[in-house]
C-alpha cells in the first residue's frame, strides 16, 4: 500500500501539463488538455473561429475556442463538477485565484460567479452536479462573435 501511494505522489510531481495550458496558449495545448482529461476530441470550424470539444471520461465536457491565428481565446465547461482550472486557465490561473478571493470576501451568499478582470472574464453558473462555466480573454475574441456562442 505504501509503495503505491508513494508512486502516485511521484506521478503528481511529474505532471508537466500546466506549462502548456489552454487559455491564451497555442492550439497545440488542446491536446495536452485532452490527454489530462483522458477524453475524446472533436473539432468544428466556423467562419470566425474553431471549437475543440473534449469529452472527459468522468462527466465533464470542455470546449476550447481557437482564433484563425491559432490562439485559444476562450474555454467553456459543463458537467458534474468544476474541471481543473489550473490546467484550463494556464497563465491566467493566478489572476483568477486572486480575483475570486477579492470578490468573495466582499459578501456572504451564493450566486453565479461573474469575474470581470483586466484582460480576463470568468463566469460560472449552475448547481451541484450541473456546473457551467466559461473564461475568455475579451481582447482576443474575434470581431463579430457573439459572446452567447462561447459556452
Amino acid at each position: 500500500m505504501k509503495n503505491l501511494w508513494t508512486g502516485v505522489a511521484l506521478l503528481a510531481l511529474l505532471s508537466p501539463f500546466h506549462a502548456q495550458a489552454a487559455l491564451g496558449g497555442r492550439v497545440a495545448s488542446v491536446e495536452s488538455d485532452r490527454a489530462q482529461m483522458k477524453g475524446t476530441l472533436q473539432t468544428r470550424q466556423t467562419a470566425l473561429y474553431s471549437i475543440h470539444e473534449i469529452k472527459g471520461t468522468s462527466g465533464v465536457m470542455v470546449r476550447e475556442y481557437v482564433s484563425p491565428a491559432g490562439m485559444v481565446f476562450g474555454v467553456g465547461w459543463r458537467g458534474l463538477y468544476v474541471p481543473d482550472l489550473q490546467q484550463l486557465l494556464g497563465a491566467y490561473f493566478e489572476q483568477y485565484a486572486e480575483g475570486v478571493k477579492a470578490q468573495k470576501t466582499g459578501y456572504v451568499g451564493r450566486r453565479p460567479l461573474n469575474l470581470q478582470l483586466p484582460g480576463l472574464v470568468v463566469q460560472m453558473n449552475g448547481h451541484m452536479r450541473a456546473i457551467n462555466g466559461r473564461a475568455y480573454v475579451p481582447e482576443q475574441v474575434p470581431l463579430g462573435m457573439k459572446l452567447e456562442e462561447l459556452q
Partner: protein
Amino acid sequence: MKKEVLTSALLMISLALAGGLAGCGGSSSSTPPPPPPVNNVQAIAVDGGPVAGQIYPDAAFTSVTVCIPNSSTCQTVDGILVDTGSVGLRVLASALPGLNLPKLTGSGGVSFYDCVSFIDGSFLWGPVAEADVTMAGEKASAGSIHLIEDPSGFSVPAGCSNGGVDEDNQAALGANGILGVAPEPLDCGLACDPSAGGVAPPVYFGCLAAGNCLTAFVPVGQQVVNPVALFPQDNNGVILKMQALSSPAATATGSMIFGIGTQTNNQLGSATVFTLDDFDNFTTNFNGQSLTGSFLDSGSNGFFFPDAAIPQCAGNSVAPGFYCPTSTVNLSAQNVGTNNAQNMVNFSVANSVNLFQSNGSDTAFPTLGGPGFVHSFDWGLPFFYGRNVFFAIDGQGVPSGAPAAPWWAY
C-alpha cells in the same frame, strides 16, 4: 504505467472501503405495514443567519439533530442553510463539538474526504462521517454526512481548492452548515462509484494522515446522501413553503414539509409539474433568450439572470454583484419543463443598495437580483416567497398520475 498504478491504487481504496464499512444500513425485504404518520413539518426562517453582526440576505435556515448512529448521543445545530441546489447534509465540525461521529476510512490508514465546489468559486472540504439525522419527526439512519473542516497536518489538495476560496469556517460560510435537498439522492452518484472506472471525479478524496490525497471512488451506499431519501416514510421529496412578502422584512418564516402525496399536508394538488433534463435543469424563456440551464435554488440568495439593460451595483457598494436599477423593474419569464409544462412568472428587481440601506436590519428581500451567466436563470430564494415548491427525488416513488422523478412543481 501511470494508468496501471493509479487504477490499482483506486481499486485498493474501493476494496478497503468495502471492507471498512461492512454492516452499514440495510433494511428488511419483506413488506411491513405502513408506519403511522409522523410530524413531517420542519420550521424554516429567513433571519440573517447565525453569524453575529453579519446579515446573510435571502437565505432560509433550519436546525438539524445529528446523532452517533443508533445512539442517543446527539447534538442539535441551528443556522443550517436550506439548499435545493445541492444534495446532502454538511455541518461545520466546529458546530458539533465533542460528538465523535465514525469517519469513513479504509485500510492502510486511508481516510475519505468530500469536496464541494460552488459556482461562486468557493469550496468546502472535510471528512465523510456516518450519522443519524433527525428533522421534525423524521429520522435518516446511518447515512453519510460531510463534516466541514480544514485538514489538520496537510493542505486541501489543489484538485479540490482549484484556485477557489476556502469556506470551511462559520464567517465565510455564513451558516453552521448546509442541508442539500435537491431532487437527487446522492451528492455524486454513479460517476463516483467504483463501477464508473477511469479517473475518479474530484468529489471524494482518499488521504493518508500526512496528506498524499488522491481522488477516490466511493460506493453509492457510502456517498453523502440526501437525508430525506433515507427517511422510512415521507422520503420522496420536500416542499418548501415560504410566506408571501411584498416588501423587505426583518424575517420571513416558512416550512419544509417532507414527502409528496404521502400525508394530507403534502398533496400535489393543482401544482404544475416540470420534469427536468439530464442535468436537473429546465428552460426559462426570458427577454427573447432561451435559457436552457435554468433551475430553482433556495440556496442562491437572489434572482440571477442575464439582462444587459439593468445596471449592476458598484463593486465597492454594500451590494456588490447585485442589480442596481434606478427604479424597480417589473419583469416576467416563462418556465418550461422537459414535459413541456409551462408557467409564466412575474417578478421584480429593485435597487439592491437601496434595499440593503433602507432598513439595516432587514434580511428578507423579495426583489433582490443580480446578473447571471448566459443560458441560465437561477431562481433563488426570492422566487420561493408566497409559493409551495415541490422537489421530487430521482428514483423515489411519486404520487399516482405524476411523472417519474426528478421533477419540480409549484
